[in-house]
């Protein structure tokens, strides 16, 4: 009943979810390929990556101002054991989580707080989960509350959501009614700047039972997130409807979610390593016009995308044939830093990582090559500039190499203008 308190998959009580799982397993199992060839290709790719790393280690040490000698050990930026985050698969010791300064929130604190904040009535079947010491986990409490009009399940989950991010916005954004039928949904800003979404909906989107689920999702300006659910039944699923509506009306539900007690508890939960500034920033300048302003002299623009943030391209011609130049500008990309850069990547004094790739074009135009400079700042802002020896990725090559050199692409990628 409460939010994901189980370690096991927790969807088996919804027939649709079970069918979906079954359908995915059928569909997944039907895919097969030449595994030996794939394994060999993977190992070959690994050997290439390793050679690239080894070849660049010496250069990286000499040009990198932040490479530091710590206790006699050279700490290389970026790669294995470097500053870049490794994927932290659950239950692996590959990336030991930094020990938080406190031990988080206990199950008992959660339950006691929920009981204290509920109006007059009886409570039973209290369960919960502490946040533990792992950063980023939520703490939960759930119980059955009866104000005298029938038992009702109530649960609360608290965690921290980086403020100003898409995730924060999405949490308090009313869902599209096309997908989730509900009776009412509102999003309001409270006097302290918190935003709260109140959703009066149903346990099952298809309303196969009349179990109502009312939800409050509240996020404070500093990213404290409180999620409260209440039902008009003693359990979330598989319990008869016990009353016409859940016990707390909109005002009472808002009061419960907005209680300062939760915020104190959220602050005690160890936070995931900060994603940094980037999460709060909109991705920079309009891409196509910025790219145009950064092009070297002597190139005619013969094709262009619309001018928006995030992505854009130009087709340029230096007199020797068309060349497509495309740019992606992204923020909040620290979660995939490790997939994009390795110890073969260059690290600039300010911590920005730069990777250069020369590859065949992705879309299969005959003889097309793609030269890419990928860059990311320590706070996760990424600019990727790719140039092709063709006016389009699908068309055959129109020239031997792209119209811009790697050095020129690098200069474009590292321009501060993307963020102005």
């Amino acid at each position, binding site marked *: 009943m409460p939010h994901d308190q189980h370690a096991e998959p*927790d969807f088996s009580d919804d027939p*649709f*979810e079970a069918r979906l799982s079954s359908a995915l397993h059928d569909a997944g199992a039907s895919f*097969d390929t030449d595994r030996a060839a794939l394994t060999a290709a993977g190992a070959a*790719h690994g050997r*290439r990556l390793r050679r690239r790393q080894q070849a660049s280690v010496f250069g990286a040490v000499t040009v990198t101002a932040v490479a530091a000698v710590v206790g006699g050990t050279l700490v290389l930026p970026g790669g294995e054991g470097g500053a870049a985050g490794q994927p932290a*698969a659950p239950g*692996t010791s590959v990336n030991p989580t930094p020990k938080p300064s406190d031990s988080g929130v206990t199950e008992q604190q959660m339950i006691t707080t929920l009981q204290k904040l509920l109006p007059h009535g009886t409570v039973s079947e209290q369960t919960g989960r502490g946040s533990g010491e792992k950063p980023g986990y939520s703490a939960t409490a759930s119980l059955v509350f009866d104000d005298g009009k029938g038992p009702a399940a109530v649960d609360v989950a608290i965690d921290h959501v980086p403020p100003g991010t898409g995730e924060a916005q999405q949490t308090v954004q009313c869902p599209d009614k096309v997908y989730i039928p509900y009776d009412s949904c509102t999003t309001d800003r409270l006097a302290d700047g918190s935003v709260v979404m109140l959703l009066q909906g149903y346990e099952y989107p298809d309303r196969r039972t009349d179990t109502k689920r009312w939800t409050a999702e509240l996020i404070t300006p500093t990213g404290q997130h409180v999620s409260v659910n209440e039902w008009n039944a003693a359990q979330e699923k598989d319990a008869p409807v016990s009353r016409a509506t859940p016990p707390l009306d909109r005002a009472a539900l808002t009061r419960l979610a907005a209680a300062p007690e939760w915020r104190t508890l959220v602050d005690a939960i160890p936070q995931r390593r900060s994603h940094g500034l980037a999460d709060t920033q909109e991705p920079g300048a309009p891409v196509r016009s910025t790219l145009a302003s950064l092009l070297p002299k002597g190139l005619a623009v013969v094709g262009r995308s619309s001018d928006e943030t995030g992505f854009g391209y130009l087709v340029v011609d230096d007199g020797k044939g068309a060349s497509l130049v495309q740019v992606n500008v992204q923020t909040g990309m620290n979660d995939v830093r490790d997939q994009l850069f390795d110890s073969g990547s260059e690290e600039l004094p300010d911590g920005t990582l730069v990777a250069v790739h020369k590859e065949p074009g992705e879309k299969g135009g005959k003889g097309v090559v793609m030269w890419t400079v990928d860059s990311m700042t320590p706070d996760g802002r990424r600019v*990727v500039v790719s140039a092709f020896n063709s006016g389009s990725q699908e068309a055959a090559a129109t020239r031997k190499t792209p119209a811009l050199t790697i050095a020129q692409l690098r200069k474009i990628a590292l321009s501060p203008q993307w963020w102005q």
Partner: protein
Amino acid sequence: MRQVRADEYAEFAAAQAGHLYRSACLLTAGDTHLAEDLVQETLGRLYVRWSRVARADNPAAYARTTLTRTFLAHKRLRRSSERSTDELPETAAATSDTPLRLTLLQALGQLPVKDRAVVVLRYWEDRSVQETAAVLDTSPAAVRTRCVRALARLRALLGEDIGEYARP
């Protein structure tokens, strides 16, 4: 790589390649070419880090996490010739297939990539909400939000019974 380690890696990669590929096919909504690229990239990264991966409690889970993140890193780049998301990759249509499998892949293809990753992790990898959140480096609340939205969308696209996949 020393020989013992190399043998260990080869054994691990051979054992995992099939599952990684199938996961990649679902993540890419049936784009088998991209799926092969993603698995190759994933196996390459595991090769480079093998001495650490081998010491992990669960190297297989580590491999799947790497695959998911490689997929997300790839999919978040837009291309000048990008297909719209509601168009089925032709590679899936080209395989001999049941209409329902195609429908499922097409429906997956209509989900935003992170929502699709949540669905694949939860219902194909059978991961818990907490584990899914850890793989995607996000909060459990965000996983729930994505999951509810994705399920509602899939319900609308596939129907409550998911056609003949429905099992008694």
